[in-house]
């Protein structure tokens, strides 16, 4: 069975850009990107009429049992509420520290996948970009210099391989284990869910992962042909269009059309895993954890902000183009803050429109990846090729990586395309599968061969693995993806490679080895044990 890729939708370049809408570069720095709004700000819940359990659109043609827990929404969603991560960005508070080098981290994607805005709570680590601003910001000052970080930088990357005398080995490892930048362990003890076994699977003909415009359109089309369709949307319907002032008006009609065609829509539902023997999907979220049997799969999970490797790309204040749109939609960007934009014109177009609408000052705009950035919790400096150096509150990088984890879980492989390269799913799959929308994006030019990032740049943010460590491991004979991953730890952290896979694959290619990413296993994104254990509602 081959994977099928939809040709057009959102796939090509967006064509000629509209007027640049540049604001004059601000000669004086603003107070920072918004975040001045009080904790009692708009909750954003008002516009949503979440109508749990009254989904009346049952697919008569499908298996007799209705899909449990299908949660529908009456209208297009309103703007999302302000998140803790957005508030922290505005207040210039770094959220957490990285695992090995204790580098200050904010959030890059503000969409729940980059995992860099994790903070410790009594309940366990949580993503600040998923938490309402009413939650408490982490306390205490965050110094850029940190003893653990300095030690991490000073020690060679594989210092732990040194053989130590038995007498100190145990205490050394005990110390090492306490020295990481990992968030604190949970302290709350919730009631034990006394559940056993696994609930029976539910069956649909087509499972659609992702409820953006492409997913809604595909679901409607298949349901119209008389198939039972379950659409699982991790957030609310609309996808990227939710945050695009020019397109958000199209969400409600698309949603209504899908529903009237009989599509069952389950919001706040993640397709967390795909399995081929037997063919199943694992769905988690508000409606509990469900196992779904399906005949075919539509992957419409959109595209991620792609963060190319350059020194300083992990500084708080470096965000993706999609993140900018989300921050704007949650009213988190104060007029007058300064923004440096980079990325292809087709991708920076939305950012320029948002900047114009929100009164942001664009201080630099370019198509190239920055040479380096420095940030921390203060306005950063960004240097571009040719020596241009600007100070800006935000550096917005506008490249997009098609979401690929479900395609790879379904058995497809990837090739590199574009410059900076992104991964494009291709090849045979273990199940009938169709990619559509942002997940089917293919950059027009490039194959990653020309991409040679600065060796000092951090490729894997979860584990703080630099390009030069990847190069070194490859030179040492760990020159295929599975051994490289195990040698360096790259791609083994919470984001499971979404930030670094393209860089690792490109690094292998640059070193004359086949570009590849490690075997992709469920889960598609981290899910708490509590959520995994939850019964379907």
């Amino acid at each position, binding site marked *: 069975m081959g994977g099928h890729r939809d040709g057009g939708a959102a796939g090509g370049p967006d064509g000629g850009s509209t007027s640049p809408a540049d604001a004059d570069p601000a000669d004086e720095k603003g107070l920072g990107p918004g975040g001045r709004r009080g904790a009692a700000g708009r909750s954003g819940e008002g516009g949503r009429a979440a109508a749990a359990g009254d989904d009346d659109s049952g697919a008569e043609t499908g298996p007799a049992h209705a899909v449990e827990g299908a949660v529908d929404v009456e209208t297009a969603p309103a703007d999302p509420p302000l998140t803790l991560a957005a508030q922290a960005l505005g207040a210039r508070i770094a959220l957490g520290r990285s695992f090995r080098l204790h580098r200050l981290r904010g959030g890059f994607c503000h969409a729940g996948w980059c995992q860099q805005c994790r903070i410790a709570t009594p309940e*366990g680590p949580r993503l600040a970009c998923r938490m309402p601003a009413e939650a408490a910001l982490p306390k205490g000052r965050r110094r850029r210099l940190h003893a653990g970080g300095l030690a991490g930088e000073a020690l060679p990357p594989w210092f732990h391989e040194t053989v130590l005398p038995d007498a100190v080995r145990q205490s050394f490892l005990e110390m090492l284990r306490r020295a*990481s930048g990992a968030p*604190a362990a949970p302290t709350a003890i919730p009631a034990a*869910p*006394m559940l056993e076994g696994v609930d029976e699977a539910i069956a649909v003909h087509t499972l659609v992962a992702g409820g953006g415009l492409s997913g809604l359109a595909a679901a409607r089309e298949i349901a119209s042909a008389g198939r039972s369709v379950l659409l699982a949307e991790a957030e609310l319907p609309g996808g990227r269009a939710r945050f695009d002032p020019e397109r958000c008006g199209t969400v409600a009609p698309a949603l209504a059309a899908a529903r009237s065609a009989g599509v069952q829509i389950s919001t706040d539902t993640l397709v967390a895993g795909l399995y081929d023997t037997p063919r199943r999907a694992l769905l988690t979220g508000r409606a509990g954890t469900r196992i779904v049997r399906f005949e075919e799969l539509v992957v419409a999970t959109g595209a991620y902000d792609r963060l190319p490797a350059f020194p300083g790309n992990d500084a708080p204040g470096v965000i993706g183009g999609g993140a900018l749109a989300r921050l704007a939609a949650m009213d988190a960007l104060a007029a007058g803050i300064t923004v440096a934009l980079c990325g292809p014109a087709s991708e920076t177009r939305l950012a320029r429109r948002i900047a114009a609408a929100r009164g942001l000052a664009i201080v630099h705009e370019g198509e190239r990846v920055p040479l380096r950035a420095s940030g921390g919790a203060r306005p950063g400096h960004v240097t571009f090729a040719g020596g241009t150096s600007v100070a800006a509150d935000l550096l917005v990088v506008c490249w997009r990586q098609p979401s690929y984890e479900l395609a790879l879980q379904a058995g497809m492989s990837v090739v590199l395309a574009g410059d900076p390269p992104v991964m494009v799913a291709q090849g045979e799959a273990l199940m009938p599968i169709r990619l559509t929308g942002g997940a089917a994006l293919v950059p027009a030019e490039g194959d990653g061969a020309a991409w040679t990032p600065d060796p000092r740049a951090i490729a894997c943010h979860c584990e703080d693995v630099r390009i030069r460590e990847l190069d070194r491991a490859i030179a040492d004979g760990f020159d295929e993806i*599975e051994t490289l991953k195990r040698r360096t730890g790259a791609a083994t952290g*919470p984001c499971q490679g979404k930030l670094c896979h393209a860089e690792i694959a490109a690094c292998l290619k640059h070193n004359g080895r086949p570009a590849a990413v490690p075997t992709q296993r469920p*889960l598609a994104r981290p899910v708490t044990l509590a959520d995994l254990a939850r019964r379907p509602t």
Partner: protein
Amino acid sequence: MSATSGTADIVVIGGGIFGLSLARELAERARRRIVLIERRHLGAGASSRNVTRVRAMQLTPELARLAIACQEKHARLDRELGTATLFWRPGYALVLYDDEEMEIMGRANAMLRREFGLRTELLDRRGTLERVPVLEGGALPVGALYHRDAAVHHDSVVIAYRRALSARGVDVREHTEVTGLLVAGKHVEGVATPTGEIRAPVVVNATGAWSRTISAMAGLDVPNTPLRREAMVTEAVKPIMDTMVTFYRPLEGWFHQTLRGEVVMGVTDPAETPGITLSSSAEFPVRTARHVLAKAPGLAGLHVVRQWAGMYDVTPDRKPTVGPVAARPGLVQMSGCNGRGFLLGPKLGELLAAWLDTGRQPDLLAGFEADRFAEGAPSVPVVADYYAGYRQK
């Protein structure tokens, strides 16, 4: 690709911990021409999928005797190989939920202390909760059998062996699949690969769950059964527990926090059917989350980031099979890991290398002969499940 032929003193099939350790020990004994053949990359099978517990506290005297020696080997492996394997002692508790289990484990405790001088402890409820605070709030344990057992890092061990083999000049051929054994009469005389034949007087089957496939190439039907086991892992957090936990009832389940801070866990599917598959299942994360949280609700807020599957190579009596195969001179078995391969591997390599070099079977390998399931051999008690085995004692 033109087929070429070559010769060696010994061919080891399988680049997991069994094959790696045997090749390394043979090289230390100045065996000259050793060829190690691995279908994928070194450690690709169970050696990079296991959860690296190195437990001396086994529940039968025979296994305990071997396991203690195996743990001692692990404790000095870093010095022998020249690379740290992250050997440390977080401790290990078999957590018990009824009086009958306490009684059985009480006998095991007495046996381990008396016969082997292990400092195991039978903990009561309070002692158990002190050792494993994350059980607070969950199903109340009755007690636990505890020992200050060890863990290593599987990738570090494989990397340490890779280096050691490279330093010794062992001919390691990754991404090479053995497509057949060269058999003349009853004698095994080498292996066939897509890049040519390698003739050798000794061929070792160290292929774990794939050992039955390799044996079949020599016309042997060995009773090894491949059985999938699954695991999943959370994000790293600061230390939340030391002790590694296993509970056997009502389902076999386990969890522990790694040195890096992730919590690894798994609950066995009682209906798992034998056969080789490295695919994960959709049911596993749900079953495991429910079962583990019922006992350790304090872990509820941790995020699972990944699940995976590996293979056990299960023998009818749950013991390894190590040594020459009488029915096929030239063929040597080093299989039957039964989920303990990472513990056993380094020591078994040392013992088997000595056996092959000197012709004398080391005492520690008595009872693990490869021929014990052969036709005409005295019948071996079959262990339907681990628990039944302990119960007999």
